[in-house]
């Protein structure tokens, strides 16, 4: 049976963003480089306070296989290495660099033509350049390629924009189309895959027409247009919607012969090979009702959020809420002096307080969450089982498969905090499983 993956057209308060030309902002005086801006172990600092650093110089060394190096985005002096608020929540060790404004390049940077046809060299370079998944998940790319090499036939390039109202992928595809295609070629070679699918949502017409004219003649890269639904950019949904392959619960894309890379990740890989430049810059969407006009900016990693919004023209009205990421899964922050990281694809500033002010009623069992859930779950019942702490039921109804994408809560007429309930349900089920395990061991 063909599974219908629903998705919702999010009618958001965010206007569609005209992606080009993206703005390049004046550089800030201080940059905050968190050493943990990827999934995995934080990088170990390899510079000391007071040291002179150059643009592109490595300042944090990857610790272990699932980790990523961190590089200085500007030239300047290391002011401090201390705990600082992080854009991923909480605090983490952060290298604070004072910008000298000279943009002196690190002498180590050079093109790496030898990586064009050497998968091992390319993976090493990707690891060295600190490239991570730039759609927001920030999984170290080298580790992803390593885990999937030889097991797959298809590389999928995610140009579906992970959340509604963002246009970072769109801008990247339009402005760096050549680098993107180069990156696709490199990733295909590194993964040992035969063909690549470039998946773009249908509302990104300019990117579709531009890229369809540039695809390589050998047919190794196919362009696939997808309806603009949320969560189209989710890994499992994207693979299913492009190839029809369904990842088993708990499985990885490699299990079905696929690997998914964000388009900006591919561009970063191409740039690392072309100029040796590590990942120090990315596209970021500024949107939300507090901004006069939504725009896409090109920012250095580590630029403080406040600097970005001020340099991009400031707010039109005072924001009540600032969100890092998209409107559906982004994190609202209470301060704006932390640096953006490798996964920061958007900064939303809301002039109105939004969903919290709305009145909640009890569940009216309308079933919209069931209709909309991209994983085919029943959030209404999961909500009930979480409230009743019915762990076995939570397991039976697959609470661990929830993506926390927020589609259920978005459409809920009763305005229930369903995502939080799912998170609580997972925690309760985990606690129950641990208790069961301990009980069984005690019996032995």
């Amino acid at each position: 049976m063909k599974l219908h993956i629903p998705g919702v057209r999010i009618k958001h308060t965010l206007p569609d963003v005209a992606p080009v030309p993206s703005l390049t902002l004046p550089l800030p005086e201080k940059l905050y480089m968190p050493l943990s801006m990827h999934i995995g172990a934080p990088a170990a600092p390899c510079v000391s306070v007071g040291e002179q650093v150059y643009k592109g110089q490595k300042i944090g060394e990857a610790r272990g296989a699932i980790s990523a190096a961190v590089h200085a985005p500007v030239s300047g002096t290391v002011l401090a290495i201390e705990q600082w608020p992080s854009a991923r929540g909480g605090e983490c060790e952060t290298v604070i660099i004072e910008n000298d404004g000279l943009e002196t390049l690190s002498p180590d940077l050079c093109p790496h033509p030898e990586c064009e046809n050497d998968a091992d060299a390319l993976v090493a370079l990707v690891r060295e350049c600190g490239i991570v998944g730039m759609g927001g998940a920030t999984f170290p790319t080298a580790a992803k390629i390593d885990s999937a090499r030889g097991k797959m036939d298809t590389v999928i390039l995610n140009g579906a924009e992970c959340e509604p109202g963002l246009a970072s992928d769109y801008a990247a595809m339009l402005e760096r189309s050549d680098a993107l295609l180069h990156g696709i070629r490199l990733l295909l070679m590194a993964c040992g895959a035969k063909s690549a699918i470039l998946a773009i949502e249908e509302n990104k017409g300019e990117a579709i027409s531009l890229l369809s004219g540039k695809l390589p003649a050998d047919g190794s890269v196919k362009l696939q247009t997808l309806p603009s639904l949320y969560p189209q950019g989710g890994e499992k949904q994207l693979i299913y919607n492009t190839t029809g392959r369904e990842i088993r619960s708990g499985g990885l894309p490699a299990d079905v012969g696929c690997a998914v890379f964000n388009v900006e990740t591919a561009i970063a890989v191409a740039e690392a090979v072309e100029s040796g430049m590590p990942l120090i810059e990315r596209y970021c969407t500024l949107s939300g009702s507090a901004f006069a006009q939504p725009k896409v900016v090109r920012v250095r990693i580590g630029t403080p959020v406040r600097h970005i919004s001020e340099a991009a023209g400031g707010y039109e009205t005072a924001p009540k809420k600032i969100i890092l990421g998209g409107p559906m899964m982004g994190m609202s922050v209470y301060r704006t002096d932390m640096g953006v990281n490798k996964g920061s694809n958007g900064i939303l500033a809301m002039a109105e307080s939004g969903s919290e002010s709305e009145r909640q009623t009890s569940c009216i069992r309308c079933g919209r969450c069931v209709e909309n859930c991209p994983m085919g779950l029943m959030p209404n019942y999961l909500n009930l089982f979480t409230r009743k702490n019915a762990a076995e039921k939570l397991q039976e109804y697959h609470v661990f498969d929830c993506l926390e994408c927020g589609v259920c809560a978005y459409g809920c007429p009763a305005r229930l905090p369903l995502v939080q309930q799912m998170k609580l349900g997972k925690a309760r089920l985990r606690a129950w499983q641990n208790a069961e395990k301990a009980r069984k061991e005690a019996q032995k």
Partner: protein
Amino acid sequence: MEDRLLVSAPPHVRGGDDTQSIMLRVIIALTPALLVGFWRFGLPTLMITAVSVGSCVFFEWGYRRLARKSCTLGDYSAVVTGLLLSMTLSPAVPLWLPLIGGFFAIVVVKQLYGGLGKNFMNPALAARCFLFSWAALMNSWVSPRGVDAVSSATPLSVMKGMALPAESPMDCFLGLRAGCIGEISAAALLLGGAYLLLTKVIRPHIPLSYLLTVAVLTFLFPRGNERLTWMLYQLLSGGLLLGAVFMATDYVTSPGTDRGRVLYGIGCGVITVVIRYFGSYPEGVSFSILIMNLLVWLLDKWTTPRAFGYKKEANT
């Protein structure tokens, strides 16, 4: 300029519909049928509706206050219950009947089980069935104005005697027949149903499967020789359309999955026809919906959608 930022959990945007707006749309959708009732039966029906809505709202307010719970009048669900209840009453009932009905619907069926969303039966229908305790009052019909008769049998009670009613199908469609306040005009009910479908308040599964089941069964097993006419009368008479469009689609007491909704509609249809053919009452819509209400949790369980990533292997 960014001091005092609000921190909250995602998602940070919400869709347009909330409980209140959905209930409002149901009220709007009920209006045409109610207006036809007012027009055909005159002032008494207006009074019945007012008492029914008023008592539902009063008891909702009173119970929540007595039980020291939050006031839930703002979600308009009590108004919807009151309207639905009055629409299922004969225009000849005395005014104290909807008052008792409102008490039963709101306090016994809805609030004692926890209020909106927790009741396992449709409050309006359960109250209507409770009111059959006064069967003589519930089954006294008046003919709509414009038809020359003092008291009149409903088309369904005529068909119980295996005869075709005197009204033409067109009369039944427009509302020129005896019956409950809100059920007489198929046209007005369909208009309301179309509005609900267009504004996505309801999905077509329940009304369609319900009506189709009744149509198929009455077409296959007609009483008399004119299959098509018999089927048409069965569809247009009684509370079938009111039930299929407004009662069976009540969110709280219908399944949450599409497959469940289809099964639920079919179940309602089968039970309706069985009661109409073999029961002692001429009409079976209320009972069939209430009976299916009780199966909703089972239907939800049986029709749980297949979760992504749990595909059965071809060889197992």
